[in-house]
């Protein structure tokens, strides 16, 4: 008779025999042996957990993430055309699954709520035996789920999360982030903005009133002030705001000549629409053309804002128009299957699934500590952003950052942004103990058992 224990903390194995079940006088059949770590795969396959927003305002982004995951699993299992498996260097995966096991996956709905995302991740770990969790579309969700995965003893490959905190004060040993962050956006944007708009600007910030908004505002303010721009005012806007007219109106009288919108998703679409509606873009202030900047772009946001994004600067993690070999391979593979180019969310999650699988293969185990070790300090190329490193000190991914601009003459619904500059990694790099990231510690990796 063997027992299995699982759960959030394996340190505490309760020595209980199956009396409860035995009392029901059922003939019990026991299989399996004690796992060395949470959800150690025993059979011929291994389960990944993909936790994405399926309901709520980011459902389209979540749907694109799921498409990318499905594609990644196909490629890992040796189906399809292999996509980035053909360009990834170094590559340990053999196209026969991971460590000889076929990859299966389960999906869940984060609803873009910390609570729901944790519930969904927990069920994938506890019920479906997921060995890793990946995905998500907001920093609040990413930080909450990352904490859960640390406690549960599985690896978390964060999806879209842009807040400094994810690999800053809330970083965790079991969590890795491929996406860039607010500091990087600011560092990459600053030089481009300087050359485009000069070094004498008066900036007005509208910031979504929650943690991500705050970290981005702080990053942009620091970077722009360093190059000589003056911050006129920063104003917080409630997350639930729909009509931003009341927040846009005071900007005109403030004497500012530049507006930074620290908004994401629907907030950004609506605030930008209002700003354009109030004629800010055509205005002349202090003898300069009024300018609007959206530090974090996504293609779906650009789609929602329509005409209004034309010529507006921002940054993004990846764009399908990139001409490197890896990006081309991915776009080709994704486009063939889904008849559309992938979004940056799709790219991030696809790459993360591949990288995770590769790390498992390289370390020869699914044990989070072994996999984590294989990912820490891992340097690779051919995944669309040039040479890339997962820094060991904070599990943040370092790579080139794209500065983009709303395209003036888009050719299709997907062709809305153009890459104006690829800011090299060196320019966006920071010390792990930079003051915007200080205050947390990775802790030790937790294998669960």
């Amino acid at each position, binding site marked *: 008779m063997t*027992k*299995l*224990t*699982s*759960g*959030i*903390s394996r340190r*505490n*194995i*309760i020595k*209980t025999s*199956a009396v*409860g*079940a035995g009392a*029901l006088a*059922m003939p*019990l*059949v*026991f299989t399996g042996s004690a796992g060395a770590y949470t959800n150690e795969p025993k059979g011929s396959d291994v389960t990944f957990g993909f936790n994405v927003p*399926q*309901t709520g305002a980011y*459902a389209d982004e979540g*749907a694109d993430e799921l498409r990318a995951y499905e594609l990644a699993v196909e490629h890992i299992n040796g189906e399809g055309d292999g996509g980035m498996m053909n360009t990834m260097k170094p590559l340990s995966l053999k196209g026969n699954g991971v460590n000889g096991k076929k990859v299966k*996956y*389960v*999906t*869940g*709905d984060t609803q873009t*709520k*910390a*609570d*729901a995302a*944790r*519930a*969904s991740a*927990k*069920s*994938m770990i*506890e*019920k479906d035996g997921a060995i890793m969790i990946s995905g998500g579309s*907001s*920093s*609040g969700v990413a*930080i*909450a789920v990352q*904490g*859960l995965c*640390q*406690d549960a003893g599985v690896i978390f490959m964060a999806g879209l999360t842009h807040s400094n905190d994810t690999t800053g004060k809330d970083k965790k040993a079991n969590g890795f982030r491929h996406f860039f962050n607010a500091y990087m956006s600011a560092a990459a944007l600053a030089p481009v903005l300087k050359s485009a708009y000069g070094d004498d600007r008066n900036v007005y910030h509208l910031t979504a*009133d*929650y*943690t*991500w908004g705050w970290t981005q505002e702080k990053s942009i303010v620091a970077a722009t002030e360093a190059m000589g721009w003056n911050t006129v005012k920063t104003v*917080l806007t409630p*997350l*639930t705001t729909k009509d931003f007219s009341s927040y846009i109106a005071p900007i005109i009288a403030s004497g500012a000549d530049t507006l930074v919108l620290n908004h994401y998703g629907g907030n950004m679409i609506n605030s930008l629409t209002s700003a354009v509606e109030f004629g800010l873009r055509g205005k002349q202030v202090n003898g300069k053309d009024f300018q609007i900047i959206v530090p974090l772009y996504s293609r779906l946001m650009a789609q929602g804002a329509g005409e209004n994004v034309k010529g507006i600067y921002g940054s993004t993690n990846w764009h399908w128009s990139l001409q490197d070999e890896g990006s081309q391979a991915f776009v080709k593979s994704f486009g063939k299957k889904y008849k559309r180019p992938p979004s940056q969310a799709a790219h991030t999650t696809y790459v993360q699934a591949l990288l995770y699988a590769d790390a498992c293969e390289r370390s020869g185990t699914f044990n989070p500590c072994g996999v984590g070790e294989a990912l820490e300090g891992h340097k690779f190329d051919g995944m669309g952003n040039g040479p890339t490193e997962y820094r060991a000190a904070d599990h943040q991914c370092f790579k080139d950052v794209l500065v983009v601009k709303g395209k003036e003459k888009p050719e299709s619904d997907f062709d809305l942004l153009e890459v104006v500059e690829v800011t090299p990694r060196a320019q966006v790099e920071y010390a792990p103990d930079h003051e915007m990231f200080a205050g947390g*510690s990775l*802790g*030790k990796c*937790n294998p669960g058992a």
Partner: protein
Amino acid sequence: MFANLKNNDKLIMLGFTIMVFAGPIILAPFGAGYPDLLQRFAIFGIFAIGFNILFGLTGYLSFGHAAFLGVGSYSAMWMFKLLTMNVIPALILSVIISALFSVVIGYMSLRRSGIYFSILTLAFAQMSYNLAYSVFTPVTNGETGLQLRLQDARILDAVNTSGSLPSPSLFGLKLSATTVVEAFGMRFQFNWGFYFCAIVLIIMFYISLRIFRSPFGLMLRAVKTNQNRLNYTGINTRPYTLGAFVISGVYAGLAGALLVCTDPLAGAERMQWTASGEVVLMTILGGAGTLIGPVIGAGAIKYAENIFSKINDTVLEGYFAFMPETISDFFVFIVSPFVGEGWHLMLGLIFMLVVTFLPGGLVEGATRITGWIVSLGKKSKSVDANGSTEAAE
């Protein structure tokens, strides 16, 4: 109506206790036998039972009960951060704070009735939510949710040197510990956290049963029927309704505290009006004013949220794999809009159907089916006779 049945209360309690304790076994074949969902069944069961004491008995429809759930969560969390990881102080503080909170909100809201009361409670809850998400971030940690940190004081606990976060415990018994038994090709998971919640659920169910049977409960039901008559019968209805409001607020606070006992993170979303709406739906779906209805409603909704949302096309294809490919494709095509990312659609349709055809909720449905079976049993002989003649032809 269960409430009016002259059933033996001891029998009800016994049946309820057995069902709850056997939850991990009963629900495993339905894919719901894992700790997190079981805990949610119990916790939201408590929430709905409490809500039912207000809404089911007095008829006052609150749209702001999630605020008390959130307040309970935050107070319990702060107890974990400052004092100790033992859950008892956390539960005590959350009960006190949510009671205070509900006295204030209840005192003001209960000065109005009908939809005016509903809107007042909604307004208070939305204010709490909006502020928790933004201005009160130092207390609530806003969007990210209030979580444990290694640096937290926890003055009663021994110094933590393990480098990993502590987890909530009951006098040293870790609530996260699970015993897994594999049998019949299924995994049965027995989790301490669930059993702790289950015991609280049973206690709270018992309290609710006693309230239903008490003169206090009788007065509450009289409030629902005819408040005017009650006033002229010499009853001051205000303290009764406030009492019911505070009791249900405490239930909600307790549920909130249990949420962080099983998963130590308190997010602001749990105070949003949609969360308040959810408990209304649970109660009415199960059967408002009945004893067991709210628990069933809570279970049904949490099941839909956690199980239906995970059914993607691949899973569906698995379900219909036994059919020929074209037919299974057809079924997948028909069913897939209602599960996975479409689980909200499913939920919406279920509400509409239940409210339209079963105003008494699922409990009424069960009663009707039982009645139908009984009447069928009576007729069965004649049906048999007919059946045999037909077969002979």
